[in-house]
């Protein structure tokens, strides 16, 4: 693809020469002056390209006031083009021209890419939302995903982590998965992520992100690598009809990203440069120095088991008792050592130009984004080159090459969300870190190395040829290649006195070829609104994916400075308990796979006068992972649309811009079976008849009839535009049933196998989505005050409707916090299993007494951990006067939000513009594990950890105190009755929030002399506050930086606030 570079240069040279040649003929021509304005609000449009249609020459661009002055011949047709606006044609003459351009994005004429074909939005029957690239500018985030939050009704994005370059969670119309892996704060729901299509190339949304707990890879997905500046539009396909043509990968919805194209006869250079500062979040208040010592000493003295115990503890806790020792006489703020404020930059240069016949684009981006925790951050470099060429009316050729490098530093973190430092603080009595003194956690962030690199190369070549009029052959081939590496070295001090050298190398690629034919026919080709229109398309698609991961994991090396050997050493064999205390040694080939898929698809689309539209589509998908006896899955869809504003009897309603009704139904599938659960695993067993032998592995019984997971969906929608674009509504309601979900079905011992994977889970999501845009102030005169509000919201309810084997309840054990997950038919798909806390015992006499046994209620059936004053009142469901996990837990809560959405306010006045953009979430159950962990730590006052400011909590201090939390000071008793255990609804809180994502103030420079001197068409300066604030009843710091299943991890990486100062310039 390198040869594009010289060709673009040549092209620029040619165009410059062309511009020069225009001046040569100036004497014979006239000068045309005029101004180009936005028809909607009268604001001047800078950088509008002006072409001479008659002579097919490019004439120039408008300046920053929208004024132009071009030289042409009298009577020639001038064409004015501007991205996002309809073309305007005017006759060149002596009189000054006043060109009013209409924005296309307001109407339904906008092109939408559906099933790899561009169509006007008014004939699309599916539920499609479009985000313009303009809406995601001005914030240098590390992952585009962050900017989509709250922009589309029904697209639920939660930024789970503030770690730069990591991904959040995405789901369209509720969760569609049931499989949970891991436990505790690392418990993760299988990915609900939609299919991503970038410039017509299908891409794994999760590319490079291993959903397993170990998170071995670099974990940089494709959306973290693409620069937002390069995005022209993002379309989100929510219903089955829209997604059906993407076949086996569209069951979770589809996100289509189109990057910018060249669209200017003169080359345009756009520069966006900014500096942004990441501020660490507010630190948690802690007790330091004397406060901490008093708390610890008092707790030990007054609340130990007995005097001997308290003396023993004080004897051993030298850091408490030796108060005259200056070593232990400190008040160190450990949090401050982990967090930092960073200054970062983001630059983007785009060179583009061309017209419909030949256009080119090159986008160069660089971002330096250092995290607010030491030694973490994300740098990315990307280059996107595109060339589209149409040598004649019958042939179109397009090519693109995208290359990106993402470099991520993870400090001492780990896990899916790059764990932060929340739990890593030591006692404030410890001296602050110095050359000789440190704590392992901080040293880890200071000295450990964890470099993660992702290199992504993606290219495509597409060609369309018109065989006979209106019959096009098309072929697109794309290749997407990733290399993920992770180089990690942990010093012995930071890793339980064993060094750790970890190397990860993953290579993935995907080859996709699509060949098809399409035909369009119209009885009145000049005006589709007059006759019958038919569009037929067939294509087939071949997809080959490979994946190979190698891991080197060496423990207990000779020194912190000897990082080797990087080969496999038998000394570090897996399972050696000395090297590998956690059984996590993973040397060798971690994963290797090849996947083949073959699909056939067809669409028939018909409309009458663009008024009555029908779409029929059908897609057949087969893949190598599906069960051998069921290779192909069928994805049919139907869509209807009625544009009722085109009815004659409604045409004279001047206040109705457009109105339509949509109705769709379709089936999508998702290939989730793997070759392992359809064909089984064979393993080499050591000795059978003194020879190694190969025999089945008895963990999973192969299931050759395993089918892909599927979903069918009904969608009814309406679009309405009123009062000349002042008010627009889009409403959708849907009913989606995901079925055939693959679940483990446990087998009796007599089969020899542990389990078999079967299709059996099913769930239903239904809900409503509404998006409203109102232009509250929209006067026509330029520079006046404008105010636009857009508001969207999606209400989704999920219900589990089935589990394999006819069971109605499945309990997934959480080995870490005992916060088990319950899948129960008839409820929301995933629920928590928790004790119910109804208050605090104000006196010991309030504790219920077993009338037969004469003792108070107690914690756990065995033992003598009786409740007393200050203990939590847990509901004793079975009335046995003991609170035990087997009997007294409730199925409560829902980690999936009820409602999500966003709101955007845009104000403009003269040269200033202000955008305030917010998102919200209503009703979601969060488990505040962070608080629970912190309170449990306090049960060991003689251990070195930090003490949080207990004045912030309402805890029980004596009879009659109004408290939510038990008596924190009573440490010995608390160690018996566990009042702060995580699996109780005391820590289950509502995670509703309202968040101000972004405030951007922009100033557009107009009419400055230096702009003309420097050849600037456009200059804009802006300041953005990102992640401004979050308002929530939740008691933790941030209801959003929690896991997909709503667990607030104490080690979560906090979301940083950032301030950006930047300029946009166009030459």
């Amino acid at each position, binding site marked *: 693809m390198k040869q594009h570079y010289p060709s673009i240069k040549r092209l620029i040279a040619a165009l410059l020469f062309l511009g020069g040649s225009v001046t040569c003929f100036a004497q014979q021509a006239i000068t045309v002056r005029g101004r180009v304005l936005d028809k909607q609000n009268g604001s001047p449009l800078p950088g509008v390209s002006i072409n001479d249609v008659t002579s097919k020459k490019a004439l120039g661009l408008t300046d920053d006031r929208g004024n132009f002055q071009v030289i042409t011949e009298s009577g020639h047709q001038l064409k004015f083009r501007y991205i996002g606006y309809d073309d305007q044609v005017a006759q060149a003459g002596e009189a000054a021209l006043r060109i009013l351009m209409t924005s296309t994005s307001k109407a339904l004429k906008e092109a939408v890419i559906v099933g790899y074909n561009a169509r006007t939005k008014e004939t699309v029957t599916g539920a499609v939302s479009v985000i313009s690239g303009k809406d995601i500018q001005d914030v240098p985030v590390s992952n585009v995903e962050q900017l989509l939050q709250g922009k589309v009704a029904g697209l639920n994005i939660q930024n789970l982590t503030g770690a730069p370059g990591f991904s959040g969670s995405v789901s369209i119309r509720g969760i569609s998965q049931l499989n949970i892996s891991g436990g505790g704060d690392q418990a993760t729901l299988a990915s609900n992520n939609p299919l991503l299509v970038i410039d017509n190339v299908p891409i794994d949304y999760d590319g490079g992100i291993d959903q397993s707990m170990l998170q071995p890879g670099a974990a940089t997905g494709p959306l973290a690598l693409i620069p937002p500046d390069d995005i022209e539009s993002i379309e989100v396909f929510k219903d089955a009809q829209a997604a059906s043509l993407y076949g086996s990968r569209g069951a979770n919805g589809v996100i289509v990203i189109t990057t910018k194209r060249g669209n200017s006869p003169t080359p345009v250079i756009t520069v966006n440069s900014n500096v942004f500062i990441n501020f660490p979040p507010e630190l948690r208040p802690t007790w330091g120095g004397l406060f901490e010592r008093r708390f610890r000493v008092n707790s030990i003295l007054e609340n130990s088991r007995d005097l001997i115990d308290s003396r023993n503890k004080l004897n051993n806790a030298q850091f408490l008792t030796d108060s005259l020792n200056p070593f232990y006489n400190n008040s160190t703020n450990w949090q401050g050592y982990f967090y930092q404020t960073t200054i970062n930059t983001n630059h983007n240069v785009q060179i583009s130009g061309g017209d419909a016949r030949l256009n080119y684009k090159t986008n160069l981006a660089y971002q330096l984004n250092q995290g607010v925790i030491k030694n973490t951050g994300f740098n990315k470099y990307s280059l996107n080159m595109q060339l589209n060429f149409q040598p004649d009316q019958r042939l179109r050729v397009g090519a693109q090459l995208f290359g990106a490098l993402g470099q991520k530093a993870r400090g001492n973190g780990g896990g899916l969300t790059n764990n932060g430092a929340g739990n890593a603080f030591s006692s404030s009595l410890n001296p602050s870190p110095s050359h000789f003194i440190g704590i392992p956690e901080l040293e880890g962030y200071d000295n450990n190395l964890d470099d993660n690199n992702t290199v992504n190369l993606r290219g495509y070549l597409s060609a369309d040829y018109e065989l006979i009029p209106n019959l096009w052959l098309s072929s697109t081939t794309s290749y997407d290649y990733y290399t993920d590496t992770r180089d990690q070295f942990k010093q012995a001090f930071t890793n339980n006195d064993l060094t750790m050298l970890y190397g990860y190398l993953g290579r993935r690629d995907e080859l996709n070829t699509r060949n098809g034919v399409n035909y369009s026919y119209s009885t009145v080709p000049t005006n589709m609104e007059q006759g019958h229109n038919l569009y037929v398309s067939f294509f087939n698609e071949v997809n080959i994916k490979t994946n190979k991961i190698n891991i080197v994991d060496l423990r207990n090396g000779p020194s912190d400075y000897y990082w080797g050997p990087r080969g496999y050493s038998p000394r570090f064999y897996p399972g050696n308990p000395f090297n590998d205390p956690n059984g996590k040694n993973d040397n060798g080939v971690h994963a290797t796979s090849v996947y083949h898929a073959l699909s056939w698809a067809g669409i028939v689309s018909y409309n009458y006068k663009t008024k009555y539209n029908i779409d029929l589509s059908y897609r057949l998908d087969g893949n190598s992972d599906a069960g051998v006896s069921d290779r192909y899955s069928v994805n049919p869809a139907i869509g209807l649309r009625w544009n009722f504003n085109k009815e004659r009897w409604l045409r*004279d309603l001047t206040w109705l811009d457009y109105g339509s009704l949509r109705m769709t139904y379709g089936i999508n599938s998702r290939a989730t079976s793997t070759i392992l659960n359809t064909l089984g695993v064979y393993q080499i067993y050591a000795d059978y008849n003194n020879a190694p032998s190969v025999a089945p592995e008895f963990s999973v019984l192969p299931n050759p009839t395993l089918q892909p997971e599927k979903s069918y969906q009904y969608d009814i929608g309406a679009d309405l535009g009123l009062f000349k674009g002042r008010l627009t509504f889009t409403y959708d309601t849907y009913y989606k049933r995901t079925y055939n979900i693959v679940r483990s079905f446990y087998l009796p011992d007599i089969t020899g196998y542990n389990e078999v994977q079967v299709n059996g889970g099913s769930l239903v999501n239904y809900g409503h989505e509404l998006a409203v845009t109102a232009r509250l102030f929209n006067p026509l005169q330029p520079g006046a005050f404008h105010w636009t509000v857009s508001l969207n919201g999606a209400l989704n309810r999920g219900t589990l409707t089935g589990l394999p084997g006819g069971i109605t309840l499945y309990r997934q054990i959480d080995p870490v916090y005992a916060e088990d997950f319950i899948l129960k038919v008839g409820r929301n798909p995933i629920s928590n299993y928790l004790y119910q806390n109804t208050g605090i015992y104000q006196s010991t006499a309030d504790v219920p007494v077993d009338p037969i046994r*004469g003792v108070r209620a107690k914690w756990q059936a065995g033992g*003598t951990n009786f409740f007393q004053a200050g203990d939590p009142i847990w509901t004793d*469901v079975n009335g046995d006067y003991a609170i035990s996990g087997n009997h007294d837990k409730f199925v409560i809560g829902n980690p999936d939000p009820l409602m999500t959405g966003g709101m955007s306010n845009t104000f403009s006045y003269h040269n200033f513009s202000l955008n305030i953009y917010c998102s919200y979430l209503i009703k979601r159950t969060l488990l505040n594990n962070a608080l629970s962990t912190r309170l449990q730590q306090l049960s060991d006052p003689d251990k070195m950890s930090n003490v949080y400011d207990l004045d912030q909590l309402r805890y029980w201090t004596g009879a009659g105190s109004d408290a939510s939390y038990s008596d924190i000071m009573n440490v010995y008793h608390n160690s018996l009755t566990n009042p702060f255990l995580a699996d109780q609804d005391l820590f289950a809180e509502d995670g509703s929030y309202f968040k101000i994502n972004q405030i951007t103030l922009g100033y557009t420079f107009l009419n400055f002399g230096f702009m003309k001197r420097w050849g600037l068409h456009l200059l804009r300066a802006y300041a953005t506050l990102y992640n401004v604030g979050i308002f929530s009843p939740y008691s933790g710091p941030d209801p959003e930086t929690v896991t997909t299943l709503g667990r607030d991890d104490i080690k979560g990486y906090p979301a940083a606030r950032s301030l950006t100062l930047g300029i946009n310039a166009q030459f």
Partner: protein
Amino acid sequence: MNRKINIKRMAGILLTLGILITLAAGCYKEGLPEEQDYFSKDMNYSINRFVVNLGRTNPFVNIFNADYSSEPLTFSILDVRHNDGSPAPELRQEIPVKEWKEYYSGDEKSIAEITAKQQDGKSPVLYIRPNSGEIFFRNTDSSKVKIGTYRFDVKVSNGGGEKIFSDMQLDVRLPHPYEPYEYDDSTGLLLPPDEGGVIHPNQVSGVMDMLERTLPADSVNVYFVKTGDAKNTLTFKFFDEDSTIIPLTRFNMMQWDSLHYRSGMIGADVFPFAFNRRFDSDSTAVTYDIPNPFPVLADVSGNTDRASITFKYNRASFGQRKNASIGLSFAIYAPGEWQVIFKFKIDPKFDDD
């Protein structure tokens, strides 16, 4: 005019549309399964044969595994019958029982204080806790319930289903007036000596005979003797091999004021050991008033809660002082005046060498 009609028509269409959408949305819940109580097929009792003794409350707690069925479950006892299948209504009859209204703490200062924490109630002899499935055989005597094997069924149900655990066995046996008890509770015969037919102290250490040989535990026999019914009392006496009484003053290390025992049921030291301690005028016996049963929670603990007492002395032996102790863990179930007799089969040496 025309325009007005259109607006009306438009409004009509929008209204119809709105109704349709509302109807459609209302239908979403139709056809979805209702959340029901989960009723596991694998729920079970960990025991199905309940061996009980008359004369005390027999608790069987923590014996039901619901296998995550939705709780509360409802339990009921059905069809209580004799072993031959004939109905046994005597097990379902309500008898007067003592019920705790306040918890027993172990630091009550008098028997009255303990009994004040109890109240009279009524309960079937065979009682099942309605939501936990725990089974209790209440304290009764053979005038109401004959010893022998009974059978009964337990029905468990919740909104999701029901299950009957049939043919649970109840083996009613003779009372143990005290523990350890040296008679077989089925036959009433004395157990063979190696199976508990003779009671020895739990602990005998440092006790030496006249020849300075250390005496093992089986050189001391313990006898529980009931001497009357006037009051609930407990008396300790020691006899040597000639059945001559040993004065308690021999136990020179006894700190009578600080005697207490550990109750496993409440996980705490019960102080004092018993009430109204008094010595005979010649210091040959110590007598206490005791609550019944003794320890207070001996029966409801599942016969694991025991009082224990240790008699200690100390003597000079060839230039050293040697400690010796004799300890016994026991419980008294039958009310009355009880004597606990320690009988040395070989004379111990209390004097200094």
